[in-house]
């Protein structure tokens, strides 16, 4: 059983720290957080060409993380692979002992750095969960038997501030039906919104990691000008605290803020764990953990 699954099952409030696969093969930056923080975090999240920007393969990065002695959480989008590739990568992950998988649709190609690439989406995130469950049960999506089945701990994404909420709840219901072990939220800065969402969701057996993020100066400025266009909001007090500082200062203050949010989420039991996005920078991650008292 993966450490993440064990921590979630045991109510140990796992902390998953997101690292950044490089655009290139220089691994120093990506792996730096492992040496510094491995004892303090349960797993390291590995984005899959995040924001549709081409990076080193998440599957390869997950293996590298594992070889370095840490536990990876492999993010897998439906954007870049058809069902053959998704399944074969899932089998590859299984064979390498990579259990934690987060299924996502994936940001559209036109938002990234290869805007003329063919968007695939042969499966959606619900169907990807079904595919993974099928592999675990010993068959592929064509119904053909496998020689040896992988074991996964399967995650999916939810958006606490979705507007409208009802179509999102339909998707969550389908993800639950497809067989999800845990959810990870979109970044959250406004804990009142998280409280409301939890109430709306009702009691769930499935575990849920809230995402705390170190915001960039750019998005803080956008929020200050009413131009922030994300699936999460920055409340006025956050904007007031961070706006107007130089970019480095915003990151440092943002890390302290993310740490405070983490602590409050844990103390109030607003989630079963957290997923931290700190630009993949070890010094920011350390600052988040320090501010959280972790």
């Amino acid at each position, binding site marked *: 059983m993966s450490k993440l699954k064990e921590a979630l099952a045991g109510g140990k409030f796992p902390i998953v720290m997101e690292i950044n696969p490089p655009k290139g093969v220089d691994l120093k930056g990506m792996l730096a957080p492992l040496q510094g923080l491995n004892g303090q975090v349960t797993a390291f999240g590995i984005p899959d060409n995040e924001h549709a920007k081409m990076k080193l393969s998440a599957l390869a990065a997950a293996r590298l993380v594992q070889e370095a002695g840490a536990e990876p959480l492999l993010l897998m989008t439906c954007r870049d692979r058809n069902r053959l590739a998704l399944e074969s990568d899932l089998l590859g992950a299984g064979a390498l002992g990579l259990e934690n998988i987060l299924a996502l649709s994936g940001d559209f190609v036109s938002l990234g750095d290869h805007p003329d690439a063919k*968007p695939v989406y042969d499966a*959606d995130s619900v*169907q990807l969960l079904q595919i993974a469950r099928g592999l675990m049960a010993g068959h592929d*999506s064509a119904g053909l038997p496998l020689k040896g089945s992988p074991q996964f701990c399967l995650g999916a994404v939810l958006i606490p501030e979705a507007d409208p909420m009802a*179509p999102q709840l339909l998707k969550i*219901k*389908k993800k639950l039906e497809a067989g999800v072990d845990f959810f990870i939220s979109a970044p959250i800065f406004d804990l009142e919104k998280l409280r409301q969402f939890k109430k709306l969701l009702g009691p769930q057996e499935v575990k849920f990691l809230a995402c705390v993020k170190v915001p960039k100066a750019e998005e803080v400025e956008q929020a200050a000008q009413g131009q922030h266009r994300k699936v999460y909001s920055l409340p006025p007090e956050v904007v007031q605290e961070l706006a107007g500082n130089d970019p480095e200062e915003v990151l440092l203050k943002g890390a302290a803020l993310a740490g405070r949010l983490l602590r409050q989420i844990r103390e109030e039991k607003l989630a079963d764990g957290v997923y931290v996005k700190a630009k993949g920078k070890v010094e920011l991650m350390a600052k988040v953990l320090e501010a959280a008292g972790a």
Partner: protein
Amino acid sequence: MIIAERKPFAEIKDAVAPYEKVLVVGCGTCVAVCLAGGEKEVGLLASQLKLARGQNGKASQIGEITVERQCDLEFIRPLSETVAAYDAVISTACGAGVQFLAALPEMKPVFPALNTTFIGVNEEAGFYTERCRACHQCYLGLTGGICPRTMCPKGLLNGPCGGNIRGKCEVNPDRACAWCEIYAKLEGEGRLGLIEAILPLHAHGRSTTPGTVIHPAYKRRYGAHE
């Protein structure tokens, strides 16, 4: 109908530059309606070519003809004879028409004047929007008459992605999220039950190109027994 846009003039002009006598063949159906390749547009293109070639001091002959439909042999067959007096042909049909024309016996080299864009509708004069990906498996009965494969850029079958913001699409914020629209429509009609079940993976095998459809009444004629 099929929507198309005319290629930049320079691209068309350069393609037929080696040929002295060029026939511009229009299509009177979809591309005429979307103001890209009907009789009027053929006239305009022919005039542009004549003018451009005249400026270059090149003697040239540019002919014009528009047929009802270039995707129908009945209308294009006579062109095999018409083209005898020309060195090359520019077709202002969609890609289907261009190919059908190019395959005629005795046909001269054929060059497209249009970029075929999509199957769409005429929203208002000169304003066309896509509605159908011709995917061989219509979901519209389940999704309130809004196509998840076409109207959602990701073609998702089981609900919205996480990227929509206040019901607007992550890919184009000026456009509504297709799944938010599907949900609202079915909710308003009390038919949300239609989208509760998980839809399976789409059968792309059916849409392997090039596609063929034989009407049931003609299966015997074409030896396509079921």
